[in-house]
């Protein structure tokens, strides 16, 4: 007989009322050794990345790379265009009239830096992604208003369906829910 397969567990999520409670709980989760942890908050909470043990320096580095590529592109296209491909002699002024090339080099730097940052921020975050299992959590629409959530994913090495559940129940949250992965 065909039965509906049981969908695998995605993780457990706890709901909190204030960011302070969330940070306190996140510290406990980090200290307990969980790595696949995420939180959901209506605004960026100071110190939360630290509390869940998340470090990421990609954005500043990538934006710096974008800026460097942009400045090289901006300057070289001008020097190549007016200095080599089609040299323009304007009143006998030098071909390498670098102060004239600064404004466009600067604008190109800012342009590529901004685009790199925005595109890479969304790409690293895996957005756009219109469905995610956490959207099925009851009350999750309040994560964009006034509720604070803490998630431990089942992928975590330390995750145990029973022990983790008991651990999360002891964090002092409003409620703990179980999330199923979509099949």
């Amino acid at each position, binding site marked *: 007989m065909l039965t509906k397969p049981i969908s695998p567990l995605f993780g457990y999520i706890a709901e909190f009322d204030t960011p302070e409670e969330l940070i306190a709980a996140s510290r406990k989760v980090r200290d307990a050794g969980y790595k696949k942890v995420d939180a*959901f908050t209506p605004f960026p909470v100071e110190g939360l990345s630290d509390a869940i043990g998340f470090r990421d320096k990609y954005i500043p580095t990538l934006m710096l790379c974008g800026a460097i590529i942009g400045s090289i592109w901006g300057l070289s*296209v001008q020097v190549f265009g007016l200095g080599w491909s089609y040299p323009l002699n304007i009143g006998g002024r030098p071909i390498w009239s670098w102060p004239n090339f600064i*404004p466009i080099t600067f604008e190109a730097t800012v342009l590529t830096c901004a685009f790199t940052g925005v595109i890479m921020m969304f790409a690293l975050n895996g957005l756009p992604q219109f469905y995610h299992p956490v959207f099925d959590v009851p009350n999750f629409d309040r*994560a*964009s*208003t006034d509720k604070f959530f803490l998630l431990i994913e089942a992928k975590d090495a330390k995750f145990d369906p029973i022990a983790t559940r008991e651990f999360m129940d002891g964090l002092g949250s409003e409620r703990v829910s179980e999330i199923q992965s979509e099949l």
Partner: protein
Amino acid sequence: MVSPAPNPNHETPSESEAKRPWPGDWRSHFRTTPQDIDPSREHDVIASDHTYESLTKHIGDLAMRRPVSLGWLVTIMGSLSLLGLMVISVLMVLLKGVGVWGINQPVAWGFDIINFVWWIGIGHAGTLISAILLLLHQNWRTSINRFAEAMTIFAVCCAGMYPLLHINRHQYAYWMLLLPNSMGLWPQFRSPLEWDVFAISTYFSVSALFWFVGLVPDLAALRDRATNPLVRRLYALGSLGWRNSALHWHRYMALYLILAGISTPLVLSVHSIISYDFAYSQVPGWHVTIFPPYFVAGAVFAGFAFVLLLAIPMRALFHLKDVITMKHLENCAKVMLATGLIVVYGYAMEVFFGWYSATKYEHYLTFETRMQGPYAWSYWALIFCNGLAPQILWFKKFRNHIPTLFIVSLIVSVGMWLERFVIIVLSLHRDYLPSSWGMYYPTFWDCALYAGTFGLFMTLFLLFCRVLPVIAIAEMRELIHHKLHTQHALHGGDHHDHGHGHKEVKH
């Protein structure tokens, strides 16, 4: 499934609908609901006891639950009519050429360049508020940055059109871009006019990116509140599926801060480059080294006047007096006063330069053409509008008087238009040779296009007010969090006494 299902106990629309006045009652928009503001706190950043929930509801409802009012319909009809006029004026230029305008020799730059510089200057206040004030930790910027950025983008749209139309050989507009062509030609990278192409397109793109990045979490908040499935899907698409994850916020904040950091020199560079359009030439009155800082200050001056012109009606019409408080209006007035003084210093330097340069053409322009010539009225009106009128803002009483602020902002907007008129027309209409002197008379199509750009701006702005959150909700929640936090610290968890705690929010 696209997004989380709406929570049935989230709110009860029927209850709030019942209390709402009849949509056609325009006067209701000029009344503030009594619980909105606490008069003793109208100088705070937030003038009422908002919670995360009440603030989200307040701003979200402005976009989603507000009935279409008669006032909005009438205004958008007017804006659309002006937009129609703009379309016709643009078509006239495309079909007949720039000859339909009043420009000719010797005044080859007229309304098109005046209005281009005027509109792009207005945009600068938005970036200043969103980027520079962010870096300076001015938390009062939070409630005005969203619409000020919108103002920037729409103003740049209006501005960008003018140089494109002014080139006249519109079929060759792509020559200004970095595109390969069969003639093997390159744009003239040594020309400030070519720098404009890069400066304005970069400014527009980066402002739009900054605005969009700020909007994403707020669109997610609206998605989560929307009850209509179609509306929810649209907001879900706009929010790119943002789920408020802490890992996402971490990268988001890193990006937002760096965007603010790079927008700061960008906004200074844009108007500096526009001033080079003038300062690189040898026309008397343009060839002045003070132009870049003087132009940037003038742009911020005009921009803050426009922010006030938009904020004053907005806070009354949309019941935003609790988040756009007197503190915001007063601070805008202070920035206006400070930048206005820099502009006045610029005027003083121009006069000094006319004398000290010992060039007879500069001397003649400053002391004869500007002060006594056929356009002397515009110079003296400029001195009145930008030099004298804003000085009233030295007095606290007037900075807190809304009609005065509104009138001063109007005067400043006119004054900044006159400044560009004085710079462009007065310098051009009397050439080095008296035989080539002439006068400049704008035509109907000059005025129609200018009026039309107001139609474009107002249409975009009214649509923005209807469908997007006009206040940066996520950033406001941080302010509320900060406020609750300080109250908590002051009273040891006792939240009922708001009379002291709120003072800590001020900076």
